Structures are given as structure tokens and as C-alpha cells.
């Protein structure tokens, strides 16, 4: 069968998103109609996007889409060219799969905004964001890439502060806006460096094709400067520590379908950018690049999960986990860079695939968890976990989907998080033999930190699921919660199925990586990843281990008769009685006696208190003895050290500097004219 070309699919997808923007703005007055047409066209566009990505990735290396101009450009140097190459296609696949699930979810979710907020505007921004993100992944020209990048940042800003009547949404939006633009500034400088190295004359010198031929031609100093600028610029978007502070503030305040998109896809544009620049453009990297990326990844992973554990705001907790997972992805990319430096292309492929597989997985389970959190928020009207509980009986389907997401993100077999972390572990382990220097110790040590991250993530999701969904409801809101609309459940169900599919059938999915590794590393997918035994991943020679999640799952089912036989043999006559929980002989348990989210993470807070610097305040009121308090007031705060020690002083410094500079702007037109004149003069002197 002859499938349409990926380019055609991509064009259809872009048109459908564009139509969604215009149509939902036109239909703004009729909110039900706007909901249907806005998210409907996004659903259609997502299906086309998946088609484009899959045909692009399966049509063999080098046969991706051809380059086409979106629009004839009227400005010199600016070419609006789009090309679906394998790397772009992989990320288009991520954004399209999420867009499909999120759009279906949104039909039901945005009904909560009826009569309160303008659904048409929300749908328009949603479509615009997806359109811009797809263009970021497919733009084949640095100028156009930056334009799409900015449209993406601005629409994301509008969506973060969509509920602008809340001050926290406004503040979060501004913080996001500032951080994002500092990052874009770095990117512009980085691309200008590449442009200059490419000749800096013809308009085509901005094209990715030209950059690709730069490779090792860049001078070392300029290459390192470009690396740092890109790492900083893309790092802000990805939310690496210590550039992450906007992320846990901005992601939770957006509507939940948007939070899922922000955490699932938007931060991945940073990963896309880094992969594009480091693996596609810059040639063989020096060792310290890989070391830096691996170190940043390790630190981000550990700190991200530690801060996540301290949260009892469900959506903030998930946002911090995004930092952790970006760290895990960067561990894969950093290891790949180090392997490239030491000329181990097969291992570099393994590490890169580990990172990119985790990118896909994180997008899916994080979006699933945010949608679950959105459903909970919808039903209980609170993000505070301490007011939830018992939701599994009131929202069984949501609870099941959230549980699958929680198991996946905790990297437990047999779901998808385990597969990609397993690949990362294997890559790190194999790295020990690639170099003779002491640098080799970094690999197992970051492997150990990855283990710590995984175990803490499991602890965190026991808390997140256990406190939110299990036991007794802790507030009236939670007690009166009810299951959400079927479309919302369908959106979550789709992602749940994706988690299970990517977990059980990694060998099928890994085949898609072949054109990608050919493009980036000139290396086909190693046989031990693409074939092995069909359903067993890896091998014992080149890779040092095998795993089969499908085998584990099937074997688990095969073992199920063991406990059942025991039961039939011994306990057929036993009865099951429903009784109260053991209450030590008191008058029965109340929800106040349950373990709280804060209590659950207390041991970890104590162990890592040097990092968290927790501040607590206890006030007792008593009549006779402090042991019989009448009233107890307890407060506990944790402030991120990065905010208090790094960003606040920086902020104060900038404010002080701008106060000094105020003298220059006295408001007199004559003075301004002189400034302009002097600037012009200087520029002319510089140019001539």
C-alpha cells in the first residue's frame, strides 16, 4: 500500500491546527460550539501529526519529508522552511500523541470553564501552542525556528496566566515570561555564532542543512561558547537545575490539560534543541561537554525528586517530577556525548536512545498524571493533597489510570518507565570500560544516583497515590467527589494504554529509532535493540543483559495459580468479614487520625535537612501542663535554597542596578535623541 507522503500529513496537521485557532476565535461567543470545533480540529490535527511522524519514521533513513516553504517570505534572510526529518518526526510523534489524548480529555474538562472563562480563547491558544510546537520540531531554518520558539513561549505564557484573576497565575506567568526570554536571548546568540561560522553571507546560511556541515570546522573557543549558550538557553526551557525555578511555579497554575502539555511536551523542546544542536550540528564533542551534561542531569534528577517529595500540592509535586525526569533524560544524552568523544558509536546510540525513549515515556506518563490530577481537581476543587483521600471509591477509573502512571513514573517493571531507565542503567554500566581516566567512575556513580532517584520517586508516588486516593476522605469536598466525564476518562485511558504498550512492547517501538540514529550518529540501530529475540530486549554480549517486560508480565500471570491453589487447598471454608480498622480501642478512627502527606515525607525531610532547611513553628496553648495542650498551631515551610540564595540576591542586584540607571531616563526628548545619535555613530564606526 502506498501511504501519502509524510509531508502531506504534516501540511494537513498544520492546516488543521491553524483552522482550530481561527475557528475557535470566531466561535468564541458560543462556548459549546467553540469547545467542539476548537478541540475537534486539534484532535484531527493530532491524528494527521501521528500519521506524519509514523510515515516519516518508517519510510527508511533519509526518506523523511522534503523541505517546503510554509509561506513565501518577504523579508531577506528569513525563510519559512519546514522539513520533517527523523529527529523532528520523533518529537512530532510525541506532541501529536499527547495532543490526541489531551484534546479528547479537553472536551469534558473545559466544560468546567463554561460561564466563567472564555472557552474559545482557551481553544485558540491551545491550537496555537500545538501549531507552534509542531513548527519548532520541524523548522529547518534557525530564523524560523526562533520565531516558532517565540510564538510557542508567548502562547504558553497566555495559557499559564489563563486564569489571570488569580494573582498566583499572574505572577507565575511573569516569571515564566522572564526566564523564557533570557533563554531565547542565549539561543539567538548561539545561532548567530553558528551563522557567523557558516559564512554569514547568504540567507541559506541560517538553514539547518548548512549548520549540519559545520561539524568540526568550528573553532574550539567558538564551539564551547556556542555549547554553553545552547545549554543555558535550552536548559531554561527544559527546566534543569538551577534554571528550573519557573517550572514548579508555572506548570501547576495553568488549566490541567495545559499543564499536561507544558510538562509533557513544552519542556521537551529544550531536549529537542539540545539533541539537534549537540548531535546534529556540532561534530565530535570534547569530553567536558558530556561530563557537564551528565552532571547536570544527575543533579537535576536527585534534587527534582527530593523537592517533589516535600510537596503536598498535587500539581506542584508533578511539576517537580518533570525536573527529575529531564535529569534522567540528560543522563542519557550526556553519556551519549561522552561515548561520542571516546568513539564508541554503538554505545552512543544506546545512550541516546535511552534518553529519547525516556523523553517519549515521560511525556506520556506525566501527561497521564497531570490529567489524573486535573480530574481530581475538577472533582474536589483543591490541589492540596491533605484535603483528599478515599477517591478510589468515588473515582475508580481515574484512580486506576493514575496508578498506572504512578507505577510507570516510579520505573517499576513491567511498564514503560522501567524500560527506558533500564536502557539508561545499561548505557551507564557499559560506559565504565570506555575510558581509562578517572572519569569512568562517573558512570556507576550516576547510576547509583539514578537508583536513589528511582527509589525516592517510588516513595513520592506511594504518597501521591496513597494520600490522594486511598483511606478515608479528609474533607467534605473529597467525600462528595464523583467520577468525571467520559471524554476525560477516554483521554486518560488512551495514555494509560500507551504506557502499557510502550512498557510491554519496547522492541516494536525501538524500531522507529533506526532512521533517527542513522541521521544523528551515522549508525543504524544496533541489532541487540532492534531484534534480539523479538520480545527480549538487549543481549548478554554487547549489552551486558537482557530484559523482557512482556515475559515478566506473562510469567506473572502464569504464577497466579500458585496462591489460588493454596487458597483452594487450605482456605475454601474461610469467610471474609468487613470490620473497622484497628483503632487501639478508641471510639473509632476519624480522618484526622490518618497519616498525612507531610507526615509521610517527614523522615526524608529529616534525613536531607541540610538541603531542605525546613523551618517549623509550633505554638501550644495549655492550661496546666504542656502535655495536655488545648490548641496547637503548627507551621512548616521549605524554601528552595536556589530561590533564597541565588535568585533573590540576583533580583535585588538587578533592581539596584536599574535604580542607578534611572538617571539616564529623565524623560527629556533631547537627551533621548542624543542617545540615539551616539548609538548610531558607534554602530557605524563598528561596521566600517
Amino acid at each position, binding site marked *: 500500500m502506498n501511504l501519502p507522503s509524510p509531508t502531506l500529513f504534516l501540511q494537513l496537521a498544520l492546516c488543521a491546527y491553524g483552522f482550530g485557532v481561527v475557528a475557535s476565535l470566531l466561535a468564541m461567543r458560543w462556548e459549546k460550539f467553540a469547545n467542539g470545533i476548537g478541540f475537534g480540529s486539534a484532535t484531527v490535527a493530532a491524528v494527521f501529526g501521528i500519521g506524519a511522524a509514523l510515515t516519516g519514521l518508517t519510510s527508511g533513513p533519509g526518506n523523511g519529508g522534503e523541505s517546503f516553504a510554509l509561506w513565501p517570505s518577504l523579508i531577506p534572510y528569513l525563510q519559512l522552511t519546514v522539513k520533517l526529518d527523523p529527529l523532528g518526526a520523533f518529537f512530532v510523534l510525541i506532541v501529536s500523541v499527547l495532543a490526541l489524548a489531551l484534546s479528547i480529555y479537553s472536551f469534558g474538562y473545559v466544560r468546567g470553564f463554561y460561564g466563567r472563562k472564555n472557552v474559545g480563547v482557551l481553544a485558540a491558544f491551545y491550537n496555537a501552542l500545538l501549531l507552534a510546537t509542531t513548527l519548532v520540531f520541524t523548522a529547518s531554518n534557525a530564523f524560523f525556528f526562533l520565531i516558532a520558539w517565540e510564538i510557542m513561549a508567548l502562547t504558553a505564557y497566555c495559557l499559564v496566566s489563563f486564569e489571570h484573576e488569580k494573582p498566583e497565575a499572574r505572577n507565575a506567568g511573569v516569571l515564566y515570561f522572564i526566564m523564557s526570554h533570557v533563554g531565547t536571548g542565549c539561543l539567538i546568540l548561539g545561532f548567530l555564532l553558528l551563522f557567523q561560522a557558516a559564512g554569514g553571507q547568504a540567507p541559506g546560511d541560517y538553514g539547518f542543512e548548512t549548520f549540519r556541515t559545520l561539524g568540526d570546522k568550528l573553532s574550539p573557543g567558538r564551539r564551547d561558547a556556542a555549547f554553553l549558550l545552547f545549554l543555558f538557553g535550552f536548559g531554561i526551557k527544559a527546566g534543569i537545575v538551577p534554571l528550573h525555578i519557573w517550572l514548579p511555579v508555572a506548570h501547576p497554575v495553568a488549566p490541567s490539560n495545559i499543564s499536561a502539555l507544558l510538562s509533557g511536551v513544552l519542556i521537551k523542546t529544550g531536549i529537542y534543541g539540545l539533541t539537534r544542536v549537540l548531535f546534529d550540528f556540532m561534530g565530535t564533542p570534547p569530553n567536558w561537554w558530556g561530563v557537564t551534561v551528565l552532571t547536570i542531569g544527575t543533579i537535576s534528577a536527585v534534587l527534582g525528586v527530593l523537592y517533589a517529595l516535600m510537596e503536598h500540592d498535587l500539581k506542584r509535586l508533578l511539576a517537580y517530577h518533570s525536573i527529575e525526569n529531564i535529569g534522567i533524560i540528560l543522563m542519557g544524552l550526556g553519556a551519549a556525548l561522552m561515548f561520542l568523544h571516546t568513539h564508541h558509536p554503538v554505545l552512543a546510540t544506546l545512550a541516546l536512545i535511552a534518553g529519547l525513549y525516556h523523553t517519549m515515556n515521560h511525556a506520556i506518563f506525566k501527561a497521564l498524571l497531570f490529567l489524573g490530577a486535573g480530574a481530581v481537581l475538577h472533582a474536589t476543587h483543591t490541589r492540596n493533597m491533605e484535603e483528599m483521600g478515599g477517591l478510589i471509591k468515588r473515582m475508580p477509573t481515574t484512580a486506576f489510570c493514575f496508578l498506572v502512571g504512578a507505577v510507570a513514573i516510579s520505573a517499576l517493571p513491567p511498564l514503560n518507565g*522501567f524500560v527506558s531507565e533500564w536502557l539508561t542503567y545499561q548505557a551507564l554500566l557499559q560506559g565504565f570500560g570506555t575510558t581509562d581516566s578517572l572519569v569512568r567512575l562517573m558512570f556507576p556513580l550516576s*547510576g547509583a544516583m539514578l537508583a536513589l532517584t528511582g*527509589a525516592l520517586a*517510588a516513595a513520592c508516588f506511594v504518597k501521591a497515590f496513597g494520600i490522594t486516593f486511598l483511606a478515608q476522605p479528609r474533607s467534605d469536598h473529597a467525600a462528595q467527589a464523583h467520577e468525571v466525564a467520559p471524554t476525560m476518562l477516554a483521554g486518560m485511558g488512551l495514555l494509560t494504554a500507551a504506557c502499557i504498550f510502550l512498557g510491554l512492547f519496547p522492541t516494536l517501538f525501538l524500531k522507529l529509532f533506526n532512521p533517527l540514529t542513522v541521521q544523528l550518529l551515522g549508525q543504524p540501530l544496533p541489532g541487540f535493540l532492534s531484534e534480539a529475540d523479538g520480545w527480549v530486549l538487549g543481549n548478554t554480549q554487547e549489552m*551486558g543483559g537482557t530484559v523482557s517486560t512482556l*515475559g515478566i508480565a506473562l510469567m506473572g500471570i502464569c504464577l497466579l495459580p*500458585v*496462591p489460588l491453589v493454596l487458597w483452594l487447598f487450605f482456605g475454601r471454608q474461610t469467610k471474609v468479614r468487613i470490620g473497622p480498622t484497628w483503632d487501639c480501642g478508641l471510639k473509632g478512627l476519624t480522618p484526622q487520625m490518618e497519616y498525612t502527606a507531610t*507526615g509521610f515525607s517527614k523522615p526524608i525531610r529529616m534525613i536531607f535537612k541540610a538541603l531542605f532547611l525546613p523551618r517549623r513553628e509550633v505554638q501550644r496553648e495549655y492550661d496546666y501542663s504542656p502535655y495536655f495542650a488545648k490548641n496547637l498551631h503548627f507551621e512548616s515551610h521549605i524554601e528552595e535554597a536556589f530561590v533564597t540564595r541565588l535568585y533573590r540576591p540576583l533580583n535585588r542586584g538587578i533592581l539596584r542596578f536599574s535604580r542607578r540607571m534611572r538617571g539616564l531616563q529623565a524623560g527629556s526628548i533631547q537627551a533621548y535623541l542624543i542617545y540615539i545619535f551616539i548609538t548610531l555613530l558607534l554602530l557605524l564606526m563598528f561596521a566600517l
Partner: protein
Amino acid sequence: MMFSVLAILLQTALLLALAPLVSGCIKNWKAKLQNRRGPRVWQPYFDLAKFLRKDMVISEHASWIFRVVPYVLFISTLLAGLMVPMVSVSAPLSLFGGALAFVGLLALGRFFLALGGLDPASAFGGMGSSREMTIAAVAEPALMLAIFTVAIAAHKSTNLSQMLIAAQGPTWKLLNPAHVLAFAALFIVLLAETGRIPIDNPATHLELTMIHEAMILEYSGRYLALVEWSASVKQLVLMALLANIFFPIGIATDSSAASLGLSLGWFLAKLLALAGAVVLVETTNAKLRLFRVPDLLSAAFILATLALLSTFLFQ
């Protein structure tokens, strides 16, 4: 690697049959060492049979999670056990996963058990879950680093059978500093993972000190049997891993009955020796305060780091 149904069946049977015996031996010997008579060595079998015959009381607040937990725990522990070579060098499920899948499956069981602790709305369960997850998290880096150290010696393979084959090779020396240090680290992790003194006290029922017992407080009847059985299988599996990888004497490399029988004898001897070591540690130490436990586990982490460093230095 032969995928053999018989091997799976035999190892499952061995795991299930042997695990209560090891627990019983530890209990009995510990009592003897403390000048008590103690329960019979076979007592855990009678306990399990009794639990299986008893009626169950399930908390009114519990959801389906509570009922699923014993099965998930039991099966994930068995699966992990099937990945560890015990009597023969090739573990029945070694194709399905090595050390990493083993750690992952144990973590899966722990994840669900901790949820089961939270489900009945009791503060004890929550306390137990919180502590269990904390201790597991602090133990994990030491465990992974020690596994990495052993894997590096086994030609960078995480496959447990491969590790064992490498351990039987000529390059493996018992008193190699890397192995001694890695063994020490893994032994501490073993104590933590199986809830032994000085980390947790399996004999206590004092609410404020217990960890594992607090989590399973609401379980009764056959669910309790499954949970207890899983705990002892987990203990057996971890001990088998330590015994076989660090003392690879006498493990059968072929599948003839004679060598398998001999190997079983060696295996039992090694297990009982390790159980004796656990008994000695339990009797001569007091339980640590909860916030001292991370110190012990960071010591394990440092030991594992030193093990890694010494593979770097002495190769």
C-alpha cells in the same frame, strides 16, 4: 540458556519450601543464642498453614488495592526469585531480566505493600509505609553501586547467571578488596531490605518502632499468609544472591542429578552460614533509632564506592 518449564517449577517449589525454613532457623538460633528455647525450626510452616485456614477481617475503609497487594507482592517476589541462580548456574528466568529487573521487581512489591499499608486509613500503616519507603530509598544507591561493582567484574553484565559464571572463573578472588567491600555493603543492604535488627525488628509489635509489621497490621488470614511468605521468600532470595555471587563454590554448571544434588547441599550450607551471620548481628546489636539508620546505610554506600574505587585501582 534453556527456557525450561521444569526449571521454573522446581525453583518456584524450592523458593516456597525453603523460605520459611530459613526464617525458622534464624528465629530458633537467635533464641538459643539468647538463652531462650525459642520456637521450633518448623514453626513458620505451621504459622502459614494456620493463617491460610483462618477467616479474614478486612477494613471497611480498604479498597481493591488492599486485596490486590498480597498477590502482586507474592508474584513479584517469586518472579524476582526466579531470576536468581540458586542451585544451577543458569536461573530459570535469567533471559527475562538480570540484576536490574530483580531490583525493580522487589521495588514493585514494596510499592504495592506500602499502598496496602495506607489503604485501611490507619496511622500505623501510614507510618510503616513512610518508613519502609524511606529506608528503601536510602538503601537503593548502595545496592545499585554494589551491583555495578560486581557487574563490572563480570564483564559489565547485569545478568545474574553471567555474574555467577564470571565468579567461577579464574580471575575471581574471594579476598579481592572490591569483593570484600561490595559484600559488606550488600550485607548491610540485606539487613535493611529484610527488616532485620539494627534497622527494623521483626519480633516487635511496639507500634512506634515497627516498620514492616506496621505496614501489614491490617492483614489477616490468607492475605497475611501471602504477605509473610513473600517476606521470607524475599529474604531467601537476597541471601541466595549474596551466597552464590560471593561464594560461588559448588554450584552446578550442568543439569545432571548428581551435580544438582551436590550443589543443593552446598547451597543449603551457604544459606545457613549466612543465616548464622544474620543471627549474630541481630543478637549482638541493638536496634538503631530511625534517624540513625541513614547513617548506617550511607556507610554501606561508602563501602560500595570504595569497592568501585578498588576495582579501578586493582585491575
